[in-house]
């Protein structure tokens, strides 16, 4: 945690209530998110047991695998799930616009958004994708036509979800923890019911009181994908061991899923009440563009992603993930003074009052011949400034204006404006409150990795494209 978040945690304990850690919502929230609460059979890696899924609170669809040990029933479950999720995604994927520009590209008008309760739900979604995307729709272990498509889409959503700032598949506990600080530790905050209890305790209770109740698996069954072992022992096992009673099984599983379903929509309500951050739209555009690309790839008969990334692909992906993380962090700080305060507390930003502006200053830069405009801005600050001279700094008020720190002594900071002084751009004015940071929403430029096709022979040469085999298509499922 950062010092500011720890400070807020102390306040949360003092007040018995969660403290907002953001003034705006940094993730896009769809008008029609698809809430997906999957349960897994205990002891299995990817065998579904049940799920509740739907795009509105009043439209909960309950899916149940009546005999989780039966392979055909698992695929019947996948087929049923595919019939809900695939059309939901394709509805968005099919509507495109062309974005004109230096090189025109396609973008979807909107994108799907799937919400799962917690990080375990994300991981399980990935496994459902992994276990279905290679399946063949004909031959010995044929599955329904939508099943491999479900696998491809879920795989795509999960891969996107690893990029910070993507909102196409989100875990609600992560989302809540990003916007509120509670008195719960990291592990405890993975409990959706407990976290909501701190954020929005029911009448008459404090956050910690409500969270204690919420931790009781009888009151708030776990939000999945793992079930409560007590439920397995006392309810599920007797039902599965005895003669089939599908109606009772469904009701039992409904009882495990419904409380989480309600909590999920409560969380959506709470998050909706927080206004969108400035950068949300641009980040969502990125999701919409990636959706259009994936849609085109599938339509053209492109192959599903392989089981493994090649070394180069993995390195590129890692670099891309890091870049996304940095620009998301920076973008949040630029959009939200409370997030910027977090960085100020860590010494990665400072704020103060402009005392002096030398707008007409001109210098001959090293190696140059002509004098160019390099205005100086002097800022008085009470924040500790930990940047060395020469550090490039940006300000949320003028994100296009590149500056460099000249000196910082006794709370007086001198900055030189280097770029972004176009005609209608303004310089900071004396008396203005400004904030400068070395965070950069455009991300950090890093040496680019070679294209996969140009992998040097020392690294094994260009990797072969992953082509799913018959074995993949018929992969045993036991």
């Amino acid at each position: 945690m950062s010092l500011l978040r720890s400070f807020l945690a102390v306040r949360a304990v003092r007040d018995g209530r969660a403290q907002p850690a953001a003034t705006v919502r940094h993730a896009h929230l769809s008008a029609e998110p698809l809430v997906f609460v999957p349960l897994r059979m205990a002891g299995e890696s990817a065998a579904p047991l049940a799920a509740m899924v739907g795009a509105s609170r009043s439209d909960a669809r309950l899916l149940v695998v009546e005999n989780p040990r039966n392979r055909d029933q698992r695929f019947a479950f996948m087929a049923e799930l595919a019939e809900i999720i695939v059309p939901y995604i394709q509805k968005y994927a099919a509507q495109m616009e062309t974005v004109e520009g230096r090189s025109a590209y396609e973008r979807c008008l909107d994108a799907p958004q799937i919400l799962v309760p917690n990080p375990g739900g994300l991981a399980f979604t990935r496994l459902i994708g992994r276990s279905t995307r290679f399946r063949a729709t004909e031959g010995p272990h044929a599955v329904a036509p939508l099943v491999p498509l479900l696998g491809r889409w879920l795989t795509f959503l999960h891969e996107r979800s690893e990029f910070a700032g993507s909102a196409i598949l989100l875990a609600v506990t992560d989302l809540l923890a990003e916007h509120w600080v509670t008195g719960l530790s990291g592990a405890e905050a993975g409990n959706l019911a407990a976290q909501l209890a701190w954020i929005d305790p029911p009448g008459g209770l404090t956050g910690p009181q409500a969270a204690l109740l919420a931790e009781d698996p009888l009151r708030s069954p776990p939000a999945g994908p793992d079930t409560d072992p007590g439920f397995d022992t006392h309810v599920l096992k007797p039902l599965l061991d005895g003669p089939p009673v599908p109606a009772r099984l469904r009701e039992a599983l409904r009882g495990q899923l419904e409380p989480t379903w309600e909590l999920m929509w409560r969380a959506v309500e709470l998050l909706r009440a927080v206004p969108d951050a400035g950068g949300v739209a641009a980040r969502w555009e990125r999701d919409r563009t990636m959706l259009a690309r994936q849609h085109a790839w599938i339509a053209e008969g492109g192959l599903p992603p392989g089981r493994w990334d090649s070394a180069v692909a993995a390195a590129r992906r890692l670099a891309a993930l890091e870049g996304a993380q940095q620009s998301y962090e920076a973008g949040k700080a630029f959009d939200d003074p409370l997030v910027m305060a977090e960085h100020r507390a860590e010494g990665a930003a400072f704020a103060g009052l402009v005392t002096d502006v030398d707008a007409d200053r001109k210098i001959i830069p090293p190696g140059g011949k002509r004098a160019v405009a390099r205005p100086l801005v002097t800022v008085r600050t009470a924040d500790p400034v930990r940047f060395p001279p020469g550090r490039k700094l940006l300000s949320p008020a003028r994100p296009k204006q590149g500056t460099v720190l000249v000196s910082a002594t006794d709370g007086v900071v001198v900055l030189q404006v280097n770029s972004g002084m176009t005609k209608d751009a303004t310089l900071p004015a004396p008396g203005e409150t400004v904030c400068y940071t070395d965070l950069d929403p455009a991300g950090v430029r890093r040496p680019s990795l070679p294209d996969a096709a140009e992998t040097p022979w020392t690294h094994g040469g260009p990797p072969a494209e992953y082509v799913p085999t018959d074995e993949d298509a018929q992969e045993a499922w036991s």
Partner: protein
Amino acid sequence: MNQGDDHGHDHGENPGGNHRMSHGGNHRENHGEDHRESRRVNHRMDRGGNVRVNQGTEHVNRMDAIRGGSRPVDHNARSIAALAANPACDRRAVLDAAGIDKDRTVAHLGYASRFGQSPFAITRTQEFKSIVKAHGGAHVLRLLREVLGLAVEEAGYHDAADVGGDSGHGVRHRHTAAVLNAAAQDPADAATLIDHPLLKLGVAGYDVYLEPDVIAFQAARRFHVVAIKSFAIIDGQADTGKVSAAAREAAVYVHAMRDLFARLGLDPERVSHDVVLICPKDFTNFPTACLLDVRLQLEALRRQLERLTRIDTILDRLPPDLSLDLCLDGDTPTRPVSELTAAVSAIPARYAPECLAACEMAYFCREEARACGSLEAIGRSVRDDLGGVDSVRTAIELIGGASPPPEEHAAIAERLRFVRRIFDEVVA
């Protein structure tokens, strides 16, 4: 929180899926009457999990006194591995050294322990183990050849549990020792699988038998511990939490085997710190394997076991008449809860949220830590961020800044006041 009790957690404490352990648990419940009888009779005999060894040390007597009338609980590799989970905690050290049944104790104190395991997970584990071990361990040999790069075509197979009838732990352990010794001493031995090796470990003056959950394998004069787990390795990846739990457990077996080797006059280093982990591959029941280096886990375990042998220094600081006796009447604890609470509270604890996943006492200790405003209860990172401050109340006072902070908190107080200022600036 109490409701969780009769529903959630009373089926063993063993997410690792140890068959024997969960049997032990049920046994207590179902056949309490007979079992209690045999327990009393056998208390000093060679049966059951922990048998007191006549070392006559003072602290062992003291431990018996602390535990009172109850029998010491069985340890298994998982519970021993968990000893090292919170090495700073005196309470856990004392409870474990005295063989206190933490599950029952915490239930009697009115808290859930939430270490339940689904019966489906238990069945799944058993199924997978029998698949792996089928046909004289054919899969095991194939996998060992793969991961260890061996050329052996076949291996001898011994079942160390196979000593006939209802033999006690001591007999089975001596048999294990003999089989291991024979394999180790035989220069002609190409490869040997020894299933169900029953090992022994000294924990705080007690000899603890480890329920055999592994196979010992010798090839090229080197022994490996082979652990079979039922979580899947999918496309070469497995759940990190589960892999590290498996590594901690396997380290206990490596440690115990090295211990045995030393007693047999063999070189303990012949037991490799690389453990072979066998898991289901992808979504199948087909076994696959990988090597786990458990050196770090061995080191943590060694330190905690050492600490437990020096338990006297902790005991010296505790009230001389300390008793954690549940005063069982049959299977029902009759010890007044307030008395037991006071007794447990008299042993200093060091609660951190990590306890929730590692110690049965966690919900009790969390409540206690919260009640006294521990910062660590919110998370180690919060305590570290507020370097040096350990209570919520002190933190609040420093943030408030009403009175000048004590010398040792001056630096953090200044930072906190700065944070408060910028926070107020933003929300204003």
